[in-house]
């Protein structure tokens, strides 16, 4: 600010013709009367003129001449690119995203899924197997009961001999089931059985529930 109470900013914007018309008039009138301010404005104007007088570099003619035609070419190339390749690009981008999204984030979920599927399959096995064993034992008990009944009702030696024989059979049968039980723990056997197995509705819904659980675990992990 000078003695005349005009800010230097105002002189700068006076030179740039960026003041309101009223303010511009006021300053213009002041400059006529005040030599000090007039000189200050002249210095500013000179600086600005020095800059404005500078000529910008000439744009090389080869760049200027082909300019618009090149843009047309780029536009045409863009349009050509925009349909099927764009779709392809999108698909690739999508797959890429999927891959990137899948691998690092879902890795723990996939691990959990594998464990759960294995445990479930194993449980399913022991269950069906136990069921088979139970059936067999019940059938054996049934036959044993019948034979015992025969023995007690008949009371003959032949019946007794048969009872001994049947208890041998029972032992043999139990041995059989023990062998089968061992087989149940054999992985190859498990897989084979799993393939042969038909699921009923209840089992299907069990599966679905477990898959839901897995998804929940997966989203919690990621």
């Amino acid at each position, binding site marked *: 600010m000078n003695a005349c109470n005009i800010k*230097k*900013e105002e002189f*700068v*914007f006076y030179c*740039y013709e*960026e003041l309101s018309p009223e303010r511009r008039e006021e300053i213009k009138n002041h400059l006529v009367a005040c030599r000090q301010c007039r000189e200050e404005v002249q*210095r*500013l104007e*000179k*600086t*600005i*003129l*020095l*800059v*404005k*007088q*500078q*000529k*910008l*570099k*000439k*744009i*090389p003619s080869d*760049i*200027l001449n082909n*300019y*618009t035609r*090149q*843009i*047309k070419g*780029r*536009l045409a190339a*863009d349009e050509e690119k925009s349909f099927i390749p764009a779709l392809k690009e999108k698909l690739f981008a999508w797959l890429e995203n999927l891959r990137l999204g899948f691998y690092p984030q879902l890795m723990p979920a996939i691990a959990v899924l594998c464990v759960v599927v294995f445990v479930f399959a194993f449980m399913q096995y022991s269950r069906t197997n136990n069921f088979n064993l139970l059936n067999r034992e019940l059938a054996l008990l049934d036959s044993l009961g019948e034979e015992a009944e025969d023995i007690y009702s008949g009371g003959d030696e032949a019946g007794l001999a048969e009872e001994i024989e049947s208890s041998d059979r029972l032992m043999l049968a139990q041995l059989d089931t023990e062998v089968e039980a061992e087989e149940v723990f054999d992985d190859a056997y498990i897989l084979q059985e799993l393939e042969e197995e038909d699921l009923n509705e209840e089992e299907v819904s069990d599966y679905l529930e477990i898959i839901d659980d897995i998804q929940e675990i997966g989203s919690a992990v990621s």
Partner: protein
Amino acid sequence: MMIDNESEIIERIKNGDQNAFCELVEKYKEKALNIAFSFCRNYEDAKDISQEAFIKAFKTIRNFRSESRFYTWFYRILINLCKDYLRRRMKNKAISANIRINNEAQEEESIFEVIASGLPGPKEQLLNKELGEELTKALNSLPEQQKRVFTLKNIHGLKINEIAEIIKCAEGTIKAHLFKATLNLQERLAAYACQEV
């Protein structure tokens, strides 16, 4: 008349008329190239960036509202692309810090014609050459925003409110930058301002 003619051209572009678009390119290509050149200091890149800006403008012309001038809207697209370009170049420069490609030299590259035509004697031409170099140095020494605003105002001839619209900044901020830059340059060019006839 000019404005009416331009708004008619823009209507045609909005209807997908590529020839109308080419008319507009012809009209603004030199300005666009000069602005881009003042950012990147090499004509090949200036060409690429400004062409990209035109293409982007063509594709998004529906977003252009007629209440502002086409060039302010277009320069905004252009300058944003220039800034992206500079950012990319800075990154590359940071990566290859010890290789030092020509970037340094490029930044010192003047945007002005070394010897302005129309000046009489060799003495004046030499003075002008010196001035051009000094001015380039002075401009490059300014903070980025001051340099940008000062260049847009004095070299590309835009008004303060247009600059504010282009770089999405308050007019007061633009004025502050312009004021500081002008005083800075006045100081740097004082010797030349005295010598001037």
